[in-house]
């Protein structure tokens, strides 16, 4: 049960880079596309885009599919959705509980 293998860790490591977040956002908004098309809309080379796509792929966030001579990249954000949703939901629950606890125990001590 190593937490190093936590999906959260893999997702956050992949998304720690601003350019990779931009690439991810483009794929989520625009749907499956090629590295060349992505590079057209970004201030970087196709090769640089491919490297970022590979890093996202290692975190399970992007899937590559060959179509003839082209490779289409597709966002597969389920790991991110699961991990982030768990974290935000759990965090929000504790925020509410701890705010109530703070009021509860403060009242008790005047």
């Amino acid at each position, binding site marked *: 049960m190593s937490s190093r293998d936590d*999906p959260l860790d893999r997702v956050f490591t992949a*998304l720690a880079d601003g350019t990779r977040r931009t690439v991810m956002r483009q794929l989520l*908004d625009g749907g499956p596309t090629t590295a060349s098309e992505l590079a057209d809309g970004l201030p970087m080379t196709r090769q640089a885009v491919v490297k970022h796509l590979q890093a996202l792929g290692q975190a399970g966030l992007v899937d590559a599919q060959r179509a003839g001579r082209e490779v289409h990249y597709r966002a597969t954000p389920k790991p991110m959705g699961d991990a982030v949703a768990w974290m*935000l939901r759990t965090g929000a629950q504790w925020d509410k509980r701890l*705010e109530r606890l703070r009021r509860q125990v403060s009242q008790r001590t005047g």
Partner: protein
Amino acid sequence: MSDHASDVEGTRDPDTAVRREVELDAAPTDVWNALTRPELLEQWFEAEVELDPRPGGTGRFIGADGDDRVARVDDVDEGRRLAFTWWPDDGGEELASKVEFVLTPTPGGTRLVVTESPLTARACAATNSTGWAWRLELLVLTLFLLVRA
């Protein structure tokens, strides 16, 4: 708003999915009672609570929202630390996460640190009862707000 923000701060430890730290204007004994006595837990959990706060003791948290969890106490260090594992009653133990409370006395009262960590990847996936569309919105937002370079 600012009061809340200064009292409850969230940080992220690589080994812990969710961590909250709160400074409480109350003696450690009072905080400990609020963490271990079911009738006091019920108030701030807004749930029906049963808890036997001894190592191996069992517990149950039935929330007003229908969230029904079973718990097993892992560690108890009277007045200082309480750890339990809990999971959805209808989901089984493979969906468990671990909750830990650590109390530290401070000049103004007590510092309480709460951590909750999923024990398996399935625990993350299983707690999503809401739909996929909602998650997609959430993660697009996250790309901009939550993750900072």
